[in-house]
């Protein structure tokens, strides 16, 4: 009994609880009402990032090429955070700014990119990836892209929507042909 109390009120975990990271479980299909975050009951579709305003549409598909309508994407860009669920078409659309160059490591730094974290029903763990913007200087020398087999680098690059100026599309393919590159670390 005392041990149970210590686990919550005391300064250390009880001895039967090892300091091993808690196992991940899927976000499931019904997270929308639970991860609203903003006080207005909505998720965060606008990143407070400085720079040229852009719309970034992320389109999530599965191994059969079908849209994933119950994924959740979290973005991080220079400390600015965004979080959106995908819609019926597997798409979510963020308002943000073109990211800037990242200093270091090394003299040429990293190409502008946005960090993305992917959750979904059917994903027992979340996934990490990066979104680069086609044509940005530095893509050729980016040290992270350099670790990606050449044939797969394109999966990390958003392209301009030919139908709408200022809108970029990032295809996030969870599995199969053109599978997006995911990172550990």
């Amino acid at each position: 009994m005392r041990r149970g109390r210590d686990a919550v009120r005391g300064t250390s975990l009880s001895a039967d609880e090892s300091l091993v990271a808690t196992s991940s479980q899927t976000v499931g299909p019904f997270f929308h009402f639970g991860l609203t975050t903003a006080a207005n009951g909505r998720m965060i579709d606008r990143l407070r990032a400085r720079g040229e305003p852009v719309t970034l549409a992320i389109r999530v598909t599965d191994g059969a090429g079908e849209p994933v309508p119950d994924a959740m994407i979290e973005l991080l860009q220079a400390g600015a955070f965004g979080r959106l669920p995908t819609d019926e078409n597997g798409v979510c659309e963020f308002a943000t700014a073109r990211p800037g160059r990242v200093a270091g490591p090394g003299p040429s730094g990293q190409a502008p990119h946005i960090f993305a974290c992917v959750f979904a029903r059917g994903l027992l763990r979340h996934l990490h990836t990066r979104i680069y913007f086609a044509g940005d200087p530095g893509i050729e020398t980016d040290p992270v892209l350099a670790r990606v087999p050449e044939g797969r680098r394109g999966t990390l690059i958003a392209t301009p929507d030919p139908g709408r100026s200022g809108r970029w599309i990032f295809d996030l393919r969870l599995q199969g042909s053109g599978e997006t590159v995911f990172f550990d670390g």
Partner: protein
Amino acid sequence: MNKGTQPPLLYPPYASTVRRAPLEPAIQLPESLSNLDQPVYGWWPIGETDNDLTRQQPDEPQGQRIIVTGRVVDEDGRPVREALVEVWQANAAGRYRHQKDSHPAPLDPNFTGAGRTITDPDGRYEFTTIKPGAYPWRNHDNAWRPAHIHFSIFGTSFRTRLVTQMYFPDDPLFPYDPIMHAIADARARARLISRFDLSLTRPDWALGFSWNIVVCGADATPFEGRV
């Protein structure tokens, strides 16, 4: 790396993984190139009833009132303070307030099923809620999820990001649940089960359950003095 304490991405008994699990191995990044330690600034205001799911509507929800509390620590045992902890769950009848939940169990107008809080300097969180019901799903014939509360933990960076589910002691559905059994290590599975705690139980009010959470890595929050 995780010796079976974290689930694999592809686990066919959980049918949704079959088309959604990436099949290519993840590319390892050294810490110098990682985004995981990039700080995420600030959270949104937490409302007064955000951590009490029984007080978010005009009347009290149906069901067994419970208190769920515990600490969020990193793998070094240090408290993760000011972490955003978000929860969502089904109501006492096993129904989510979600337009796509078609389980023919009643909705409770007095239960939204979503809460959030910020951990205190000791890494502690606490929620008052009602015990969720089990519910059926379509994964396999006569499939039911054990009662659970979804948890999302967000510290100061993505290094400590965690989304998981907390279960309740002695649930007869455990042996049949592929989401839980995707975790190979039996002790890791057991650590997802909260513990009934009489010392947390409030007389004439609510049953108490304790559940501690260990997030990956070391928390980026500068913290003087180790536990």
